């Protein structure tokens, strides 16, 4: 799992690459939550994430809670059709804004 973190105009952009399963989720969750702790707005770039299990959904849930508590916003970028289907099956999809590119996400703030 590769994790890249940068900030643009005070918006945190986290780019993930790889699979988020129960083996990798703990590290992803720790890194993502720590990086987001002093930000209100977070963009999660997932276009190079090929697989997300329920362990990955839990990471999204924890991030959402942390940001929502600060009245911030999480935007997901490049979610694949397959992952989007699982988010829909579990009722996660209604709580996230999803766009195709980081530029579109940046202009949504």
């Amino acid at each position: 799992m590769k994790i890249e973190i940068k900030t643009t105009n005070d918006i945190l952009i986290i780019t993930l690459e790889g699979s988020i399963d129960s083996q990798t989720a703990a590290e992803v969750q720790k890194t993502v939550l720590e990086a987001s702790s002093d930000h209100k707005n977070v963009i999660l770039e997932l276009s190079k994430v090929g697989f997300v299990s329920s362990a990955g959904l839990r990471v999204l849930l924890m991030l959402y809670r942390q940001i929502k508590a600060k009245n911030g916003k999480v935007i997901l970028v490049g979610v694949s059709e397959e992952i989007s289907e699982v988010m829909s099956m579990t009722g996660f999809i209604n709580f996230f804004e999803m766009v195709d590119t980081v530029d579109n996400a940046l202009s949504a703030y």
Partner: protein
Amino acid sequence: MATQTQTITYKATLDVLEPIRELLTQTGQEVGLDKKKTYNLCLAVDEIATNVIRHGYSEAGIKDGEFNLIVAKSDNQLVVTIVDAGTPFNPLEHNVPTAEDLTIPLEERPIGGLGVLIARQSVDEFNYEFSGNRNRNIFIVNL
């Protein structure tokens, strides 16, 4: 064609999840399963294999556990079975979130409970059997 069966033994550790997904993706391609159904099969097996490794073996204090993955290909079905000797657990008797639960805002959602739901919904048929002191989680995908 007659049913072709392959059995692979894995250590009950989470680092086998990726090789299992790779094997199932390759098998899906061999039998002409489309991308989405292949992904969903990987997902279903991943969720149950995680439970087996984590709850069936690790939390039960069983060290050096192993489980088998049986992949059976026939003309019209791909059947994947996880056979393990961990704690007996029937996912079909496990309470899964209801449609109403899935509308609860994420702030108030209980964490967890989604894995079994995802596993059961991501294949055409999901079965569980317990025999010979083994759990058998059976995933059936129609071709």
